[in-house]
């Protein structure tokens, strides 16, 4: 049965009351052009074929759906499966989106790309796509994230991208988005902004969700093939919300499948100590769209905190805001300490070093599996691998590398 929940956004970019375009007039025309170009590309079999080919031969898709036997045994309940986005080229889901948007950039005849990055994964995925197609690439990254994610900064530079440090505000992802938007304001005629999550003005939330939906589509088919039924529960971490949107979207109309988004609970529920936008935020405008935002009573965006640079964001995609209000997806938070614990458990029991972002989903899956019966299957999006995080984890655990 098809519900209207999967049939969004409308032509003005509305997911119910969420989404839309709250941007300066200077960007409006480019957004309209991008929307048209994307609609055309979507209908164009050659575009789809080229993207599929890249995903298969360059990115390494389909990646496996892996039954985590030892972790399952450890929890003593539901069966845990991982959708292995960590096995993609560059080690995270972000590349699904940058491949799609790089192809669009070329369709639009643009030669320059800008991107923002928090954990650096989207920056790396953008640098990779640009290197692959010979596009100029500039990545905005907060100074605090540059400190936390040195490895990714080095990798981006190796691939020819220019990394521009952002020293305003909290020096994290949100400031990097501001700076990229500013660049775009004065370069929009020659430059495409590859937004790294399901955020920003229409058509970005829709387009990024579509490009990331390959995760959920594959997981759905693989789960049916491997277990003979749909999963009972699907879990993914939520920063801006792209790996989770890509994971959830193909299951939205499967009413029996429970969906849980896991946000960064940081050090606790007090303002400024976490990045759990859907758990604690209010409706508002940030970075060009309307959705839940962590903000004060005057509409000023609040400072956020997370152990993971990729979840350290005070907003969230409009479609998640829509899913939250419709009750279709349940959103919850996992603290820094719980995520660190999840990271270590996964490493010890499964021999997989997960991204600290994904570790939030893992920590929640462990809790959920304990409550579940052995005939229930839980599919977790393992959004990325943790190489980029080992220095930071070692520092937090007080160990030397």
């Amino acid at each position, binding site marked *: 049965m098809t519900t209207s929940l999967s049939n969004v956004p409308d032509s003005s970019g509305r997911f119910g009351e969420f989404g839309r375009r709250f941007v300066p*007039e200077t960007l409006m025309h480019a957004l309209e052009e991008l929307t048209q170009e994307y609609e055309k590309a979507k209908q164009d079999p050659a575009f789809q074929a080229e993207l599929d080919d890249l995903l298969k031969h360059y990115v390494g898709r389909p990646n496996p759906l892996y039954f985590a036997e030892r972790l399952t045994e450890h929890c003593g309940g539901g069966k845990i499966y991982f959708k292995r986005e960590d096995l993609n080229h560059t080690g995270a889901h972000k590349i699904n989106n940058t491949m799609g948007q790089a192809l669009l950039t070329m369709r639009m005849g643009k030669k320059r790309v800008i991107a923002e990055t928090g954990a650096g994964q989207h920056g790396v995925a953008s640098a990779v796509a640009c290197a692959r197609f010979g596009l100029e690439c500039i990545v905005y990254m907060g100074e605090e994230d540059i400190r936390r994610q040195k490895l990714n900064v080095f990798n981006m530079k190796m691939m020819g991208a220019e990394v521009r440090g952002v020293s305003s505000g909290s020096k994290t992802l949100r400031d990097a988005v501001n700076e990229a938007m500013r660049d775009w304001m004065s370069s929009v005629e020659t430059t495409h902004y590859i937004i790294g999550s399901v955020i920003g003005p229409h058509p970005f939330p829709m387009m990024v969700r579509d490009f990331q939906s390959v995760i959920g589509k594959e997981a759905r088919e693989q789960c049916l093939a491997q277990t003979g039924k749909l999963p009972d529960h699907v879990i993914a971490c939520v920063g801006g919300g792209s790996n989770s949107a890509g994971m959830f979207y193909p299951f939205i109309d499967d009413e029996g499948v429970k969906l849980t988004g896991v946000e960064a609970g940081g050090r606790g529920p007090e303002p400024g100590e976490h990045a759990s936008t859907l758990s604690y935020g209010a409706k508002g405008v940030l970075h060009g769209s309307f959705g839940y935002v962590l903000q004060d009573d*005057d509409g000023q965006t609040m400072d956020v905190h997370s152990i993971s640079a990729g979840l350290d964001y005070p907003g969230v995609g409009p479609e998640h805001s829509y899913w939250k209000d419709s009750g279709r997806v349940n959103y919850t938070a996992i603290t820094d300490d719980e995520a660190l614990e999840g990271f270590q458990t996964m490493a010890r029991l499964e021999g997989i070093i997960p991204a600290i972002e994904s570790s939030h989903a893992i920590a929640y899956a462990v809790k959920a599996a304990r409550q579940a019966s052995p005939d229930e299957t839980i599919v977790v999006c393992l959004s990325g691998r943790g190489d980029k995080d080992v220095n930071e984890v070692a520092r937090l655990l007080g160990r030397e590398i």
Partner: protein
Amino acid sequence: MTSSISEKFATLKSENRMAFMPFITAGDPDLATTVDVLKELARQGVDLVEVGFPYSDPIADGPVIQESYTRALNNGFHVHDLFEALKALSADESVSLPPLVGMVSYAIIFRYGADRFLQEAADAGFSGLIVPDLPGDEAQEFAEKTRTAQLDLVQLVSPLTPEDRTRRIVQAANGFIYCISVAGTTGVRDELPPELTAHLESLRSLTDLPLAVGFGISKPSHVDTLRGKADGFIIGSAIVKQFAAFSDPDKTRDEVISSIGKYAGEMAAATKG
């Protein structure tokens, strides 16, 4: 309804003058200073004042205005306090304030509550609002409310706005049209782009509303370029950058205010040609 903004432009037109509209950030470094700067600008004969509401995540602003917003927010700027301070200033009969136009992100308006915001803005003496992140397409409902509150909702047109969009935008606008001189963010530029003249001419053929040019303007020679083509101009960063001097230990508050006033006075004089 003729607003005080329309009246001001009409008077200036009959005097064959352009309107000079300085932009200041409310609350940088504090609201008492904002009030004193406004009094000084009024004394210097500026025609309107654009009052910027500090916002944590501005995307249309360059570094000068962003830093100014940050200073104000770090000093505890609150929207309601600004409204209270301006209400008291408007009630002060010894000052004759030019029309005030608020420049405010929709993020603030929405969170504050549009009805409450408009009511308090009108009570505080604002004549109009510019909401830079609320493009025409999203503005219908809010434009309705603004009209009810008897405020002008000024619309922006960028050099990248195609003609069919421009037609729709100017139809929905009132007060004046804010013509962005360049595709980019706010900030001082040496030269105004040569295409600006043609852009203003084409806008002129589409609307009778006054055209005010903003972004990048800083000196009398820029004003000369605009004469006969625009009805007014807005100066932001060139003024706001002077606010940084309030934290300079070698300067007194009065010295900074009078140097802002001196610059404003020179630009006001430039409108007379």
